[in-house]
C-alpha cells in the first residue's frame, strides 16, 4: 500500500463527495433553464442532503435491517468506485487492480443493495422499481464489460488507469473509430445504469414510470440521504470515467499538489461539460417504454461488440 | 448285393420318400396323411436295411427294424388315434393354397440340392446323391408346420421333418452312433406322445384342434 495511491484515493473520494451533489444540481439547473424554469439553483441537492440528514428516519411496518444497512452499503460501494476509477490521477494500489471487473462488481454491490431496499417494504411500487432496476442492470452489464474490454485491447490490460494512461500517451487512439464506438456504447450503458433519460426519468412523480424513485419511496431521513448521495456518487464517478476516457488530458500521473490541482480542475471541467451535455440531451428526449429499453441496450451492446472485433482487425491489419 | 442293385434300391426308396412327402403337401386329407407317413416309414426302413445289408452292418439292420416299428407303425398309428379323437378328417383351409405350396416345394428342393452340394463332392456315391431328398423332406416338413392350421397336420409336418433328418443321417453316414440314434428316436416318440396329449386336451378345452384358436397369449 503505497502512500501516493492512498493520498490520491482520499483526494478522489473527497472531491467526488463534494462535486457530485453540485453536479446533480448543475444538471437540474441546466434542465430547468432550458425548459424555461428558474430552477432551484445548483446548491439545492446539497441543501436537500443536509435537510434529510437532519430529519428523523421512519421505518415502514414489517421492514428489516436491509432498510437501514442497504443505503450505507450503496454509498460505501459508490465511494469505493470513486477510489478505483481514475478520476483525478492514474496511480493505483499494487494489490488491488483498479480493474474493470472489480469496479463493475463493486458497482453491482450497490445496485443489489438498492434493489433489496426497494423490495424490503413489500410495497407494490418498491417491487416494481426493484424488478425493473435489476432487469436493466442485468442487460447493461454485458455492454459495460465489452465496451471497456474494447478499450482495453490497445493497452493489453483491463486496468482502467492503464487504459486512460495509454490514451494519454497516444492521443490518436482517442479518436480512433474503435474507441469512439466503444465510448458511445459505454455512455449509453452509463445512462441506463444511473437511471437517466431515456431509460428512467429522474424527476418523474408518476409512480408507474419510476424506477429509481420507486425503490426509495419507503426510505426517509438519513437512509434516503445515503441513497441519494450514493446514486449521485455513482453518476459522478461514471461520468468522470467517461470523461477521463474521452479526454484523458490533465489527469495526474504523479502526486504533487500541482498535478493534483490540475487533475481536480480537469475533472471539474469534464464533469461540467458532460453533465450539462447530458442534461441538455435529456430535455429533448422522452422516456422510453420499459419494454423498448432492451432494444436500446442491445443496440449499444452491438456497438461495443463491433468495437471489440474491429479492434482485433485493426490490431492485425 | 451288387453295387448296381444297391444304387437302384437306394434310388427307389429315396424316390418313395420324396413322392410320399410331396403327396403329404399336396393332399389335405388327414386320413391319407397317416397312411402316407406309414408308407414313408416303410420306405425309410427299407433304405436303412439296404444300406445295412450292403455294408454288412448287423447293427444297422437292427436299426432298420427299429425304424420300421417306430416310423412305419407306431407313430402313424398314434397320429391316426389322435386324429380320430379330434374328429378331424381333412385340413380345411391351409394358410397357403396347394398350388403355391407345390411351387414352394420346387424352390425348397433346389435349395436342398444347393445345400447338400458339399456332401456330394466330398463323398460321391449313391447314398450321398440321395441326401438332397432327406434335406428336402426336412424343408417340406417345416413348410407344412408353418402353413397348416390343424394340430394334426402340424404333427404330420413334425414327423415328416423328423423322417427327413433320419434319412439324411442314414444316407450320409449309416446313422449316428447307436446310443444317439436310440435316444433321438425315443425323444421323437415322447414328443409325439406329448403333442397327442395336448391335442386331446385342446379338443376338450377348445372343442377342436384348430390352431387359430391359440392366440390368447400375445403382446
Amino acid at each position, binding site marked *: 500500500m503505497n502512500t501516493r495511491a492512498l493520498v490520491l484515493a482520499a483526494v478522489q473520494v473527497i472531491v467526488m463527495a463534494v462535486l457530485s451533489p453540485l453536479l446533480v444540481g448543475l444538471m437540474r439547473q441546466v434542465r430547468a433553464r432550458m425548459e424555461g424554469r428558474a430552477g432551484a439553483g445548483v446548491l439545492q441537492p446539497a441543501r436537500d442532503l443536509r435537510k434529510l440528514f437532519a430529519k428523523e*428516519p421512519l421505518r415502514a411496518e414489517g421492514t*428489516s435491517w436491509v432498510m437501514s444497512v442497504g443505503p450505507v452499503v450503496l454509498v460505501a460501494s459508490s465511494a469505493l468506485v470513486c477510489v478505483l476509477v481514475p478520476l483525478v490521477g492514474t496511480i493505483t494500489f499494487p494489490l488491488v487492480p483498479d480493474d474493470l471487473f*472489480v469496479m463493475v462488481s463493486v458497482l453491482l454491490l450497490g445496485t443489489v443493495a438498492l434493489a433489496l431496499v426497494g423490495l424490503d417494504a413489500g410495497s407494490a*411500487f418498491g*417491487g416494481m422499481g426493484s424488478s425493473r432496476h435489476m432487469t436493466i442492470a442485468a442487460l447493461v452489464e454485458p455492454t459495460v464489460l465489452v465496451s471497456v474490454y474494447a478499450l482495453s485491447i490497445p493497452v493489453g490490460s483491463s486496468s482502467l488507469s492503464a487504459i486512460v494512461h495509454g490514451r494519454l500517451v497516444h492521443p490518436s487512439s482517442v479518436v480512433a473509430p474503435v474507441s469512439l464506438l466503444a465510448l458511445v456504447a459505454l455512455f449509453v450503458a452509463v445512462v441506463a445504469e444511473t437511471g437517466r433519460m431515456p431509460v428512467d426519468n429522474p424527476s418523474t412523480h408518476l409512480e408507474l414510470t419510476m424506477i429509481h424513485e420507486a425503490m426509495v419511496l419507503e426510505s426517509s431521513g438519513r437512509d434516503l440521504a445515503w441513497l441519494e448521495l450514493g446514486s449521485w456518487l455513482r453518476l459522478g464517478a461514471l461520468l468522470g470515467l467517461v470523461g477521463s476516457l474521452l479526454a484523458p488530458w490533465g489527469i495526474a500521473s504523479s502526486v504533487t499538489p500541482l498535478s493534483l490541482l490540475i487533475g481536480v480542475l480537469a475533472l471539474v471541467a469534464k464533469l461540467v461539460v458532460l453533465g450539462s451535455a447530458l442534461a441538455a440531451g435529456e430535455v429533448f428526449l422522452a422516456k422510453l417504454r420499459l*419494454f423498448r429499453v432492451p432494444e436500446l441496450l442491445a443496440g449499444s451492446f452491438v456497438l461495443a461488440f463491433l468495437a471489440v472485433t474491429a479492434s482485433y482487425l485493426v490490431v492485425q491489419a | 448285393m451288387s453295387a448296381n442293385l444297391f444304387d437302384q434300391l437306394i434310388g427307389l426308396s429315396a424316390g418313395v420318400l420324396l413322392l410320399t412327402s410331396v403327396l403329404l403337401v399336396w393332399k389335405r386329407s388327414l386320413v391319407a396323411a397317416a397312411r402316407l407317413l406309414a408308407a414313408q416309414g416303410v420306405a425309410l426302413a427299407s433304405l436303412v436295411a439296404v444300406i445295412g445289408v450292403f455294408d454288412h452292418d448287423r447293427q444297422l439292420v437292427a436299426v432298420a427294424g427299429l425304424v420300421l416299428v417306430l416310423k412305419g407303425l407306431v407313430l402313424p398309428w398314434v397320429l391316426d388315434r389322435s386324429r380320430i379323437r379330434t374328429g378331424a378328417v381333412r385340413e380345411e383351409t391351409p394358410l397357403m393354397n396347394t398350388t403355391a405350396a407345390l411351387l414352394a416345394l420346387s424352390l425348397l428342393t433346389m435349395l436342398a440340392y444347393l445345400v447338400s452340394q458339399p456332401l456330394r463332392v466330398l463323398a460321391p456315391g449313391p447314398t450321398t446323391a440321395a441326401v438332397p431328398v432327406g434335406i428336402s423332406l426336412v424343408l417340406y416338413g417345416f413348410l407344412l408346420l408353418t402353413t397348416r392350421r390343424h394340430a394334426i397336420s402340424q404333427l404330420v409336418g413334425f414327423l415328416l421333418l423328423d423322417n427327413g433328418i433320419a434319412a439324411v443321417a442314414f444316407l450320409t453316414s449309416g446313422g449316428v452312433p447307436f446310443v444317439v440314434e436310440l435316444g433321438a428316436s425315443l425323444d421323437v416318440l415322447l414328443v409325439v406322445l406329448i403333442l397327442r396329449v395336448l391335442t386331446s386336451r385342446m379338443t376338450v378345452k377348445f372343442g377342436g384342434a384348430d390352431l387359430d384358436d391359440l*392366440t390368447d*397369449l400375445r403382446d
Partner: protein
Amino acid sequence: MTLVQAGLLAQVAATCLALAAAAVVGPRHRARFAGAAIVASGIAGAVTGALALAGGRGSVTLPVSLPFDPVVLAPDRLGGFFMIVAGAVGAVAALYGIGYVQGAAASRTSWSAMAIFVLALQLVPAADDAVSFLLLWELMAVSSTVLLLADHARRAAVRSAALWYAVMTHLSFLLLLLGFAVLAAAGGGTGFGSMARVSSVSTAASAAFVLLILGFASKAGIVPLHVWLPRAHPEAPSHVSALMSAAMVKMGVYGALLVSVRLMPGGPVWWGLLLIALGGVSAVYGILQASVATDLKRMLAYSTSENVGLMFLALGTGLLLRSYGIGGPADAAIAACLLLVAGHAAFKTTLFLGAGSILHATGERDLDRLGGLTARMPVTSMAFGIGALGAAALPVTSGFVAEWALLQSLIHGANTQNRLVSVVMPIAVTVVALTAGLALLAFVKAYGIAFLARPRGEGAATAHESGRAMRVAMLTAAASVIALGLAPGPLLTAAGAAAGLPRVGPVGWWGIDLSGIGALLDPLALTTMAAAVLVPVLLVSVRLARRLPRRRVALPWGGGGVRLSPRMQYTATSYAEPLSRVFDDALRPERDVLVTHSAESRYLVERVQFRQYLDDIVETTVYRPGIALMDRIGLAARRLQNGSIHRYLGYSFFALVAILIVVSL
C-alpha cells in the same frame, strides 16, 4: 502402508460404521450416529484428498472375479482436489442431515444410501482405471437414486423425477462405458496409465473424447442433457440436493478434466471449441431459466447448470488456448475452472441447505408463497444471503474471485494474432457477462422475495428457525464461501498443483496472482479499502443515530400511506416478468389471463387472473417427442408377437432358409 492408503481405508471403515449404525440403531438416535459416521468419512475423504494433492501416493486394489487389468484406487493430485471438495460437502451435508431428515428420509435405507453416496463421491476421483471408475460412478448413481426416492410414496413428482434421473444417469454411464472402451482398445488396457498412451490426435481419441465428454456433460447437467437436474434437485431431500449439486455434478467436471488434461492432453482445436460451445449454451440457458423460475430449489438447480456451464467454458478456453500455445491465459482459464468448482461447491451447498431450512420450516418451495423470513429465520437468512452473494459473483465471495479469474483469462487470451481465438474470446466474455448479470437478478429475486417484505402464505408466516445441527452446517458452508472469497490464495495454489499449472500462485495477503497474464487480485486488500471508505459513512450514521436513537415505525408509503395486504406485493413471477418478456422467444412461456367481467356491465372487471407456465423447452421440443416416438414403436412392435404359432414358425423357417442360402453360397 502409506498415508493415502490409510485414508482410503479409513473412509471405507467410516462408511461401514455408518451402515452398521443405520442398520442397528433405532429411529430415535439413528440420524445422530449414522450422520456422525458419515461426517467422519467425509472428513477422512477431505484429508485423503489433501494428502494426495500434496503429492502423497498410495493405492488400494479391488479384487474382481473377471480377468480385467488391475482395478485400482490411487488418487493423483487432480483427484485429490476433487476428493477434498466431495469430502467437505459430504461432511457438511451429513451434519445438516442429522437435524433435517424426517419421515422417509430418516429411514435405514436412506441413511445407508447416504453413506454409500458420500463414499462413492469421494472415491470416484480416486479411481485409477476405467473399471473402478465406472464401478464407483454407478454406485454413486444408484445410491443417489435411492436417496432421491425417499419420498416416493407421497409425491408423484418424486417418482417421475427419479425415473428421469435414473435414465439420464444411465445414459451418461453407457456413454462413459463406450468412451472408455474405445480408449482401452486403443491404449491396450483399462488402466488410466495405458489409456494416457493413446495419441490425442488419433480418430479413436476424438471418438472417445466426444463420448466421454457427452457422458460427463449429462452428469454435470450441461444443456441439452440437463433435463434430470431441474427435476431431481427439487424433489430430493435438501441435504441430498446439496450433495448432488455441489459434489456429484462436479464429478462431471472432474471427468472432463480427467479426459482433457490427464488422459489426452493436447487434443485438436475443436475439442476446446466443443467444450466452450456446450458450456456457453448451458450457462446462458441455465441462468435464464433460473431467473424466471419460481420454485426455489428448481431455480437453484438451473443455476447449477449455469455454473457448470461456466466451468466447461473455462476448461474449453484453456484447451483452446493451449492448442495454440497460448500458455499463460490457458493456465489462468484452467485455474479459473477449478476456482469455480470450489467456489460453486461452497455457495451452492449453502444455498441448498438454506432452501432446505426454508422447506423444513415453512413446507414451501414456491417463492410466490414465501416472504418475510429474515425476522423469523435470522441465521438461515444470513447464510442464504451470503450464498446468494456468492452465486451472484459479488465481492468478496468465492464466486466473485472465480469469475474474475475467468474473465481475466478470457480477455488476456484474446490478445493474440490468432483470428479464431480473437473471435471466440469476445463471445465468451459476452456470455459470461450476460450470465453474471442475470445471475444477479435471479439471486436478488430469490433472496428478496423469500426473506424480505411480508409473508405471502401461512407457511411463511408461521416459520421458525431450524435446529442446531442445521444451523451449524449452514454457517460452516457460508463461512467457507466468505473464506474462499477473502483468501483465495491457498485455493489457487491447490488448483495449480492439481492441474499442473506453473503460472498461477498466491500473492500479498492470500491474494491470487495469475502471473501468466500479469493479473492479480487481493480480496483482503480490497476489503480493507472498503472498510476505509465505510468508516466515515458509519461515523456520520452513528452520530445522527445518537441524536435520534430509535426509528419510528409508520405505515409504508405505497404512494400514499396504505395498509398493504401481502397480496399487493411483487411475487417472484412478477419480479421476473420484464425479463421473461425480453427473452420471450428463448423461454416461450405460456401465459393465460382470465378476465371475469362483472354481471352488470362488461366494462367493469370483477377480477383478473394471470397464470404463467414455464416449461423447459429443451424437454418439450427434444425429449418428449423422442419418448412419444419410442412409445409408438413399442405399440407397433406388439404385432411381432400376435400369438399366431404359424407366424412364429414362419420366423424360424425364414431364418433356416436364409441361413441355408447364406452357407451354401
